[in-house]
């Protein structure tokens, strides 16, 4: 079979020990902002180099300065603040839940964390939270679906438009909430409309909705009808046999475990990815980790990115 295969690394990438020390020192008054900037800059250069050496097909900045997947967007938007610390699913990591205190409205086209992207090679990929995740992670007290629509329209749509205008070719929406906590049947239509907002903004770019931290099997039929170019599946948590056949949408296969330290074999992972391709026959196949890699120390995460490149190279050769 002939199938286009591409690989990229999504989500927040871990910080180096230098950044850990610098940011820790900043909070304790032992280092200055300039030292922190130098450390972050080195991390960014290093991560771009790792992606390049691994032969990945899209490039990311690794969201290294993001304190969590919502924070820069919350800070960019009026009517919202980040306060309460909440566990990030079943991990020993936490995010500050977005909390509404007024009308949502962006203060600028892009967070500063995303605006300085001149050093990222093309083609570029950006990661954003899915509107469902964003609305459910926000503090309670609002009509969740109305909030989802508002977040999509007032935040994700304009940010996506700006990113695409800046040349980003892939927009990756992270959606662990759906597969971890599920979704009420009555919420799907509103979710689809919210995704459509981003779809329209991502005109000309590849739009991905990536589910993870849970089994996508129960949701796969509805997921495949969403207005996106590819659906991401966490294959550590999802049984391939539950996903049907003959996909009429692209697939992002999460085949490297972002929460386990052993680095998977090239042979075994490529063989599994090939089985995925042959079983599901997606329109396009993207390879990546099952979740963001920030749960790993940086050295291990770098090994995973390199392994992703090796798996991708082997699969491209086999499916050429």
């Amino acid at each position, binding site marked *: 079979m002939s199938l286009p295969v591409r690989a990229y690394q999504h989500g927040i990438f871990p910080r180096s020990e230098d950044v*850990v020390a610098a940011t820790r020192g*900043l909070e304790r008054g032992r280092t200055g902002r300039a030292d922190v900037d130098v450390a972050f800059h080195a991390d960014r250069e290093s991560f771009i180099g790792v992606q390049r050496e691994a032969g990945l097909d899209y490039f990311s900045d690794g969201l290294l300065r993001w304190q969590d997947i919502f924070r820069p967007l919350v800070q960019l938007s009026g009517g919202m603040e980040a306060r309460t610390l909440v*566990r990030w699913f*079943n991990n*020993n990591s936490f995010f500050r839940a977005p909390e509404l205190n007024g009308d949502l409205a962006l203060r600028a086209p892009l967070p500063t964390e995303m605006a300085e992207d001149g050093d990222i090679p093309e083609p570029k990929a950006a990661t954003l939270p899915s509107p469902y995740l964003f609305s459910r992670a926000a503090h309670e007290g609002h009509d969740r679906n109305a909030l989802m629509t508002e977040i999509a329209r007032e935040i994700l749509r304009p940010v996506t438009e700006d990113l695409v205008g800046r040349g980003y070719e892939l927009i990756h929406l992270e959606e662990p909430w759906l597969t971890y906590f599920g979704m009420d049947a009555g919420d799907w239509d509103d979710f689809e409309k919210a995704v459509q907002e981003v779809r329209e903004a991502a005109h000309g770019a590849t739009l991905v909705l990536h589910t993870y931290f849970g089994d996508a099997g129960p949701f796969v039929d509805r997921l495949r009808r969403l207005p996106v170019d590819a659906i991401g599946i966490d294959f550590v948590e999802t049984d391939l046999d539950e996903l049907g056949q003959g996909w009429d949408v692209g697939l992002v296969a999460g085949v490297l475990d972002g929460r386990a330290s*052993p680095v998977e074999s090239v042979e075994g992972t490529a063989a599994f990815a090939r089985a995925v391709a042959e079983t599901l026959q997606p329109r396009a196949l993207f390879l990546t980790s099952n979740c963001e890699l920030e749960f790993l120390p940086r050295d291990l995460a770098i090994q995973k990115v390199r392994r992703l490149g090796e798996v991708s190279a082997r699969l491209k050769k086999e499916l050429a």
Partner: protein
Amino acid sequence: MRPEKSSTPDPSVDQPELTSTPLLTHEVGSLDKPGWRVKAYAGKPLTDQDLDEAQSWGRRIGVEDYTDLLTLLRRAPLQAKEQKEEVKRWSSRYGLRLQESAGLDAAYDGEQQRSEMYAWAVAHTEGFAWRGSVRAFDNKYYSKAAVVGPISLKEPYHSDEFAFLKGIARAELKVPITGAYTIADWSFDEHYFQDHDLNVAHAVRKARRHGARRQFILDVARNVIRPNLQALIGLGARWIQLDEPGGSTDPEELDLFAESFNESVQGLDGLFSTHLCFSDYNLFFPGIEAMTACRQFCVGFANYDSRDLGVSSEARPGYAVISKFRDLPYRPSLGLGVLDIHTDFIEPPELVRDRILYAVDVFGDPTRIQVTPDCGLRTRSWDVAYRKLQNMVEGTLLAKKDLGL
């Protein structure tokens, strides 16, 4: 100068169970480490500011003979191991006195002699190898290890610390010790589970992963936690809190969490409680119904609560779940988290009071409510931590007055 004499009750004499004391106040675990402690232990020079800090806190919280510490610190940078250990013991004494002088009924030392709750345990255990830093949130990180071989205890790692504190404590001592589930959950597994190959049938891989996970957790409980508890009890510890901030991480593993607690304490002669924080506590039910030996659940709630005064359920959204703890069949107490440890906001005594009154009303029994911060206060400065604790004690007194206790 106050006498350096222990007031810890004689364990051979029957005492009322501490977790049945109405509105007993206690800390949860860690405090920040003073600059003088960190630098002196690392063999670095100290500044005048460090010495001033040691002096002012020594006075403020009534540390006896603190001028001896100043004499020691003036010799910095310290090179001799015994001098560095002495600095740690001083820091331990300061941590204890801070809590005691804030007015807490039960105290410890803010874990001043430990490196960190997870790192300290792993460093004293065979079978682990360090892998690097992982972020917990914002700019907070922790060092993460992997289990790489059979697990065994090098030596009980809280005994020296407890023996020291037992000799100087004025308040009751409650020993915080990191629990088995959390140690396992915060570690990578490179020993028990090796079927990472996705080509293995999904159901088979999932079952193997759960089995390996259970073995890992129970090995920590049996080979690490239990011998530590036995050693502490042998030294006279009466109340030991198994810290399990990882306890609710995975709802599908609550059976393992409960089993690991029971396995750690089963048959031991002590008062055992646990600490949980920063989770959706609804997930714990009914899983923790199996933890019948747990006499108190010390749980963080203030982080989720409003800062408005009031004792209605509308005014206290962060405490909505507490009725589930009330209804546990073995009737444990609730260590009610009333201080948000992630903010410098100093909870007014009246807010503490209202949180307590709400909880007492829900439980209908003040003997099942004790009063605590949400978690250890190590992310706050000592000044903020101290003022928070003082207000917690003052708020508890207000609540007692309202309740006629």
